């Protein structure tokens, strides 16, 4: 690790001396995980088009990225542009670490906000401004075994909650004991929140000042989530206890699961080609038809670091990555789903039935509250959801604790907002 850091530092230093020699402006760009690896392949094209610019990509593992961004901010060591998880936007805005992009977007001939999925764009908006360009989109929907569903009498995926419940109950009868109709890791907050959003829950209230978990909408979604476990439709298993999701799925340990775009790639890569026709994707069912249910808006965005002396050059690079052609190229390299609709006309996406369900779902996504405290509140939801599923806490007690804990986490936010109101 240290060796890696040292060599990364050495690389950085080399890049720095490089610029001085050839007088080109070098844009420092931090990208995360696998994306940071493959985005390098887009750099030569960009540098050909902009002979006066160079891009240096620094790759950071996802698991360390959040911490690294914050410590780099504290140490004044942020680069010129960064990739960031959309849930971090509010935090970096609160820190004053990134630039408002509204003016640049308005002046740009490449970036067209109406081409982005509305829900995904919304994740990058805080206080009425856009702070990041959506790079790729992420959401959750249903992955299911077509053969197992058909054997239970369901040739089409369920579209409403009632159908969903009925389909899983039918599967419960046709599946062998020990197998489950659906897998929902009990340590995650996403599913109960999605089901609550489908019911119209706002999660927080009064301008995100207080928790709103005892609202009828949140309770209805949470209760529906618990039904999966009460009826033994889903195993009581946390994410860490699932050995190999994809192999278990192929073996029929469970007939469906909720997951994101990364599972498309994993299923294609890890399972034999003949398995390809035995699974499918479907948008999440809705409490009532006819449209599919909403899901979470996620993904990653591209942001400019505030105060960077190379902001204009960095913006060129971000604009380049937002071009539909580059969105397609990036999709082919990474498997990530483009955040721009026009990129979806590419045959690699338009021709894939597995991907098409995502296109439908991405038009039906909602962001979670865009405040720095959200991830912390979400972790409390995960905590209490697990406790209720394991039978250690009642639903009422969990919702009450959630409200209390959210209110406590939001205390500072309320204080800051009150002070702002008092200020002239």
């Amino acid at each position, binding site marked *: 690790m240290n060796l890696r850091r040292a060599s990364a530092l050495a690389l950085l230093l080399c890049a720095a001396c490089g610029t001085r020699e050839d007088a080109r402006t070098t844009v420092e760009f931090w990208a995360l995980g696998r994306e940071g690896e493959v985005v390098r392949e887009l750099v030569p094209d960009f540098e050909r088009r902009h002979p006066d610019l160079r891009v240096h990509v620094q790759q950071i593992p996802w698991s360390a990225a959040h911490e690294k961004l*914050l410590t780099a*901010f504290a140490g004044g060591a942020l680069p010129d542009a960064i990739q960031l998880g959309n849930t971090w936007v509010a935090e970096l805005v609160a820190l*004053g670490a990134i630039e408002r992009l509204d003016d640049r977007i308005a002046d740009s001939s490449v970036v067209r906000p109406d081409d982005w999925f509305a829900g995904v764009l919304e994740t990058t908006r805080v206080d009425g401004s856009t702070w990041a360009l959506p790079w790729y989109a992420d959401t959750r929907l249903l992955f299911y075994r077509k053969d197992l569903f058909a054997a239970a009498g369901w040739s089409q995926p369920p579209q409403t909650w009632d159908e969903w419940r009925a389909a899983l109950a039918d599967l419960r009868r046709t599946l062998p004991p020990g197998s489950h109709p659906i897998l929902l890791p009990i*340590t995650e907050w996403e599913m109960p929140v999605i089901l609550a959003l489908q019911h119209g829950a706002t999660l927080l209230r009064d301008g995100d000042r207080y928790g709103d978990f005892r609202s009828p909408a949140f309770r209805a979604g949470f209760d529906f989530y618990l039904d999966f476990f009460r009826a033994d439709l889903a195993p009581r298993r946390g994410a*860490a206890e699932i*050995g190999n999701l994809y192999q278990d799925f192929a073996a029929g340990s469970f007939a469906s699961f909720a997951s994101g775009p990364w599972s498309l790639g994993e299923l294609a890569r890890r399972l034999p080609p003949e398995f390809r026709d035995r699974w499918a994707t479907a948008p999440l069912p809705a409490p009532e038809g006819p449209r599919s249910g909403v899901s979470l808006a996620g993904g990653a965005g591209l942001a400019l670091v505030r105060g960077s002396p190379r902001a204009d050059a960095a913006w060129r690079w971000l604009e380049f990555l937002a071009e539909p052609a580059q969105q397609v190229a990036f999709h082919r390299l990474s498997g990530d789903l483009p955040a721009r609709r026009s990129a979806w006309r590419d045959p690699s996406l338009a021709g894939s039935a597995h991907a098409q369900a995502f296109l439908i779902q991405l038009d039906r996504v909602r962001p979670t509250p865009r405040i720095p405290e959200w991830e912390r509140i979400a972790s409390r939801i995960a905590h209490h959801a697990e406790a209720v599923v*394991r039978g250690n806490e009642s639903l009422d007690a969990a919702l009450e604790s959630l409200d209390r804990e959210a209110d*406590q986490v939001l205390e*500072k936010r309320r204080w800051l907002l009150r002070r702002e109101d008092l200020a002239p």
Partner: protein
Amino acid sequence: MRIHPAAGFLAPALAALLCFFLLPVVAGFALSLTDFDLYALADLRNLRFVGLENYAQLLRDPGFWSAFRNTLGFVAVGGPLSVGASLAAALLLCAKSARAQAFFRTVYFLPVVTTLVAVAVVWRFLYHPRLGLLNHALGTLGVAPIDWLGDPALAMPALIALAVWKNFGFNMVIFVAGLQGIPERLYEAARLDGATRWQQLRFVTLPMLLPTTGFVALMTLIGHFQLFAEPYVMTQGGPGDSTRSLVLLLYEQGFRWWSLGQAAAIAVVLFAIVLGATLLSRVRPARREAHA
């Protein structure tokens, strides 16, 4: 005023102590009286002095108490097991009839020098409910598969087993040194008095090892209170809260949520606990030493 000549020699060490120990401790304590967080990181005007509110909040937080219980359980069960295992291994190594001592000493010491992350990956496989070697072995005895890391009641015992295995080698080496320091004539005299093997162990070896044991126990105690890496790598504190230790809680408060004020309060509380436990454990051995 005349400066004592020793002051010049002491100054470098004292300066280092002041800079790298005393100041951080004082700063940490000061931090624990504020609500330093992400907003304060952005702008220091957002920092509030909250007095002892962080501590009061800790006492009200069930998450803190469960982390406290988990840590205490780890110390109370894992500590004696760890010391016992290292003592047993050292006695075996130093037994007259033992062969290839150097080989075994190396083998037993290997886990200590292995990276915990690598070890954790291997142990996760060992504990795997379906593929794990442990369940496979139990299966041949007719025991149904056990979900070691997934069951809230078993996850902590599983981590204790890992920690004992990982760390006993270090204490073993210290015990071996202690055993080699016991003069042979004492055993000779005991044998002349007709002492059995057991009596030799009970009345010669163990009393002579007391200072070593005191040291080993103390270091183990302090180390065990700082349980972090095992749950961080193996379980992230789960399932439920069953393996979240005080230091893991501190880490999450500080570096996941950036509630540095809260995190500092936990650090101060942990410091007080370890200090208290250390003082308590020093009382008895010191008196016995005086006897011997």
